[in-house]
């Protein structure tokens, strides 16, 4: 009786999840022809810029932006990459609305939608904690205002927005890891299931 190694099992699992050629296909269904598809990729690209600028910002520490023009500029890069990612230029929000109007959860893609929404909500939490750790007037005001909402439903007892050290760790470690992992699962699901066909489209006759 032949035994299956752990390595073979992991490989089989990976190949089952995303069959060979599906991870980075060089062809797409003919109906994938709209600018709306670009916003998913733009969201991912903005996320990469956020992570890179955030890592550079981490090199100088929390106060770097206050004490150095370089630190302040890197902080500006980080801020604007977040604005682009999210809302100001609408990458993620247009992606979300686009997928809603395409009813992109059809054909067994509900989990793809769910992971996308979770990534959206986790991204909001991540951005919010970024505003709390600015160690300036804005973070003083935002944290003292935000505490009441979180305290009112019991979250504030364990997630103290006034505790800068706790928020720094949430912002640079826990939440980015969560967003990154959810985004990876989301992209894997997109690749595995393929791009959702147009509403009411019939399968082509062979």
């Amino acid at each position, binding site marked *: 009786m032949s035994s299956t190694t752990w390595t073979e099992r992991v490989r089989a699992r990976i190949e089952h999840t995303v069959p060979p050629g599906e991870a980075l*296909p060089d062809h797409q269904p003919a109906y994938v022809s709209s600018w709306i598809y670009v916003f998913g990729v733009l969201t991912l690209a903005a996320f990469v810029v956020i992570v890179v600028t955030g890592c550079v910002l981490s090199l100088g520490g929390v106060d770097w932006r206050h004490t150095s023009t370089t630190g302040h500029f890197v902080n500006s890069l980080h801020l604007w990459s977040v604005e682009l990612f999210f809302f100001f230029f609408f990458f993620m929000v247009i992606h979300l609305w686009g997928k809603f109007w395409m009813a992109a959860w059809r054909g067994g893609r509900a989990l793809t939608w769910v992971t996308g929404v979770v990534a959206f909500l986790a991204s909001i939490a991540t951005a919010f904690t970024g505003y709390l750790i600015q160690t300036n007037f804005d973070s003083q005001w935002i944290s003292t205002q935000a505490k009441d909402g979180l305290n009112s439903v019991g979250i504030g007892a364990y997630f103290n927005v006034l505790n800068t050290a706790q928020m720094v760790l949430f912002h640079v470690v826990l939440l980015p890891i969560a967003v990154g992992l959810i985004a990876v699962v989301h992209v894997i699901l997109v690749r595995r299931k393929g791009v959702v066909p147009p509403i009411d489209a019939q399968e082509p006759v062979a």
Partner: protein
Amino acid sequence: MSTRARRRHAAPTADSHTFPTRRYDLVKEFVLALVGVVVLTVGLAIAFGSPDERAISLQDWAKAAPNDVVATAAAELSGDSGTAGYGPPYNNAAEGQKLLGIPLQKWAGVTYPIDAANDFVINPLKAVEGGDPALRLALTVWAKASADRQTTWAGNYVTALNNAENDPAKVAQGDYGSVPALSTAYERLAATGGLEQLISQNSFYGGDPTRRLLLLADGTYLEDQARARSLGGDQWGMMNETGNYPGQPWLWLYTFWYQVPPFSTSDNADALVWGLMMLLSLALLLIPFIPGLRDIPKLIPIHRLVWRDWYRQQREAVRTAPPAPSDATIET
């Protein structure tokens, strides 16, 4: 009807892998998107920078609004300050807000215990009483008084300050015990810049400014500064930031509820808004499973714009197709 029967009845979504394909360079698309985002980010950062208004220190507060520090100290002693009467997670002075009658705030418990009178005022003053006989006497008088007497003195002084527009020099004679001496000594201590460290939970490292922020927020100076910058709670405050910057526009819906009744007039507004936002977030998450909501994209044909090339090609294919056999059924 069983789930399986419903699935048979509903038009199935076609398998995306069965459609004709065209060449599509995903890596090139991502690289171009990345370059575009980098260029935009650098351009925006150079053009607009980012806001960075210096934090208000307790010393700044004392120098800019000394009477507010005196009034805040008296309110901490009387139990009238925001922190002293807050409830969980800082103390048990109140139950806190409820969501549909459920006291989530109370259930979460007191996880950051703060005795506002002692932690914010008395203990810091004790730390510096050595060189100030008048302060030492005031602290002794305070310590020897009963809790009720302390509350009465401080409450009287808070009322008197309110009547005197928070100016200690204009306060009428009254039964205040040593509260005026303590409050003015507290303002002098804050003005020296020594108060930050004295209320920092005896930590050499200052990573947790919870107490400092709560104390600052108990005064009116911080809010006055925020309102002057259009950041008040009724000015869509939390989603904005200083200067002409976009702030956190993704919080617009959360902030919106605070601007309209019943939330804008409710003592339970925070819990109500959080409850509503959790419900709406759950609905967004579960759209694929909610009949009605999940059908909206089919009823409002915006998808016709997204896939307009595909639908046009399908119409042309139907128009140019050879006539179907007479007994065939054409699905539409």
